[in-house]
């Protein structure tokens, strides 16, 4: 067995062709290549423009409500009887999840690039809502592609997007989930390259998306670093976040990647169990392949056909994963584990009852892992979990799963 060479830094990727090791890259149709190169250039310019950062910081503060609090979950800490548990409360952001962090960054880019129309894909609808929100705020028409299954199970978010003026396209292909929505968004983009900005919601897709989404989400981890010093005078022992495509996780993890005494855990959707086909644990049981513009771990068959995943959480229901996570798995910097549907449901209820916070089903997966780990850790150790979304959108799904009529 080859031991991977430990890099000097885990934070230097991607290289100029968008690779994290063998992962990432730009696997797109030629029609899109000039646009992707244009986006890369625009992002490089924006990165070096203090005005861009100032405008974004201003929006974070006055529009989103950042910094989001770092909250000590006293009752859960006591109940689980081990490590101190802190939640990074990105569910308190305007629009109810971490997705707004990335959308604000990208809408400013779209404006700089002179684009006049926004398209986006969405699974749980959190990114769709955030995209519709920033499109309303900056006066862009916005079209959101959403799988038919997700339209049905996330109806509150569908209505929110409509209120915000977005047009929703219900995608019937495949299982009608996030993967199919992304295919359809890419098709729309190819047909409307002249005026359209594709606002990708997760840290996946062709380069430079994984990099720029990560950078826009890194505000999460950067804030945690400061807030942790204030609260405890030191950095945490462990970070935990859920991974679907992996944007909230990379946002929390990235600033800590070189702090190698901080243990980092990503939690995938284990669905109904890994021995079935009904899960989305691409890092745990998938293999490297090429989909949606990047090489990454995928759920696929022996012929290279992509499998339909399953998760109770629409936001984790994706058979791939951002390429940087694939790289962090291969070099063992981050540990990736699955949490099953029923474990997430239990975690959802525990968090609601003990802390008075109804989490989204996505971070409920992360909390399911915290429930397993915290009791085994010492009382002076610290876990920070990214509570990346609130659960209002999920109450119908959860009531159905619990057999309660509302």
């Amino acid at each position, binding site marked *: 067995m080859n031991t991977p060479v430990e890099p000097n830094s885990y934070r230097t990727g991607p290289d100029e062709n968008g690779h994290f090791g063998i992962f990432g890259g730009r*696997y797109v*149709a030629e029609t899109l290549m000039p646009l992707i190169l244009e986006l890369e250039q625009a992002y490089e310019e924006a990165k070096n423009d203090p005005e861009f950062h100032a405008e974004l910081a201003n929006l974070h503060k006055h529009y989103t409500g950042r910094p989001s609090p770092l909250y000590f979950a006293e009752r859960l800490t006591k109940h689980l009887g081990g490590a101190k548990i802190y939640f990074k409360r990105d569910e308190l952001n305007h629009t109810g999840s971490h997705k707004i962090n990335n959308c604000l960054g990208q809408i400013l880019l779209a404006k700089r690039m002179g684009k006049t129309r926004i398209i986006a894909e969405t699974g749980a609808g959190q990114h769709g809502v955030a995209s519709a929100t920033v499109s309303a705020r900056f006066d862009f028409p916005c079209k959101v592609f959403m799988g038919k299954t997700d339209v049905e199970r996330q109806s509150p978010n569908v209505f929110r997007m409509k209120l915000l003026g977005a047009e929703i396209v219900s995608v019937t292909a495949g299982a009608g989930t996030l993967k199919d929505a992304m295919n359809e968004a890419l098709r729309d983009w190819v047909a409307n390259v002249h005026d359209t900005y594709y606002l990708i919601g997760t840290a996946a897709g062709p380069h430079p998306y994984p990099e720029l989404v990560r950078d826009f989400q890194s505000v999460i981890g950067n804030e945690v670093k400061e807030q942790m010093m204030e609260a405890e005078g030191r950095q945490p022992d462990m970070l935990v976040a859920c991974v679907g495509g992996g944007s909230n996780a990379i946002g929390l993890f990235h600033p800590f990647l070189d702090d190698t005494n901080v243990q980092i855990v990503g939690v995938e959707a284990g669905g109904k169990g890994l021995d079935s086909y009904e899960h989305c644990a691409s890092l745990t049981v998938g293999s490297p392949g090429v989909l949606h513009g990047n090489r990454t771990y995928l759920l696929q068959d022996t012929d290279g056909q992509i499998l339909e995943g399953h998760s109770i959480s629409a936001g984790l229901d994706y058979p791939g994963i951002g390429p940087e996570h694939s790289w962090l798995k291969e070099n063992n910097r981050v540990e990736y584990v699955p949490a099953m549907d029923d474990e997430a449901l239990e975690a959802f209820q525990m968090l609601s009852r003990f802390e008075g916070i109804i989490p989204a089903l996505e971070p409920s997966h992360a909390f399911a892992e915290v429930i397993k780990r915290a009791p085994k850790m010492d009382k002076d150790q610290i876990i920070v979990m990214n509570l990346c979304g609130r659960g209002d959108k999920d109450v119908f799904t959860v009531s159905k799963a619990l057999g309660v009529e509302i």
Partner: protein
Amino acid sequence: MIETRIDRRFVLLKEQGRTALVTFVIAGDPDMDTSLEIIKGLPGQGVDVIELGMPFSDPMADGPDIQLAGKRALDAGQTLVKTLRMVREFRKDDADTPIVLMGYYNPIYIYGNDKFLTDAKSAGVDGLIIVDLPPEADEELCIPAMKQGINFIRLATPTTDSERLPVVLNNTSGFVYYVSIAGITGTSTPDPEKVANAVSHIKNKTELPVVVGFGVKNGEHAEAIARGSDGVVVGSAIVSVIEASLDNGKATDKTISSVYKLVSELSAGVNRATA
């Protein structure tokens, strides 16, 4: 690189003063036997180059017709192994008609790039069009394919500007495929005059033949596009004819004949352009 059946075919077409008719079907649509019989008969209907689609679960650059065709093939059990077997069968009776495999990268990557190129070459594949492998990824498959004597055919599109064109043409061999619309397969119809201008722009930069595809639906379109190019590709229209002939997703006695009827119309259209 060494001369391929594609190179020889375009030399022959030039001698005859003809424009190429290139047809696309998905391998295994609606099932492998019917699909094999369809491609075996295509040269007899006037087809010069056969493009055989390798079905993929997530065809991001394709419109509804080809998406459905790919799904039919996959549901009927088509795999890349079977697609190569079809080519091998075809070659038993036809040593001259070029075959180009077209599709997405992942099934090849999973098959193993080197093994795929070896097996494809020995089966009788002449060229590859891999939609999601841009020139930036040439090291992965394009250059190894050229070394095997398989043409790697690149798509030029309406978004390919003068700065980008040399990048696209570099390492392209066999022919250049001009995508006539910015969009997915089988949706809008291209404007023949714009297409002819784009083709002549590309021909200023390359010796390779330039064929045009996306949106050509019937003999008249084919004729109009053929006037300004070295070849016309028709895909979605043929695939739709297959779909229309099916009964509950299964092939009927009309399936093959209706494909040939359309193809002979297309062939007549292309030949009118050269007459």
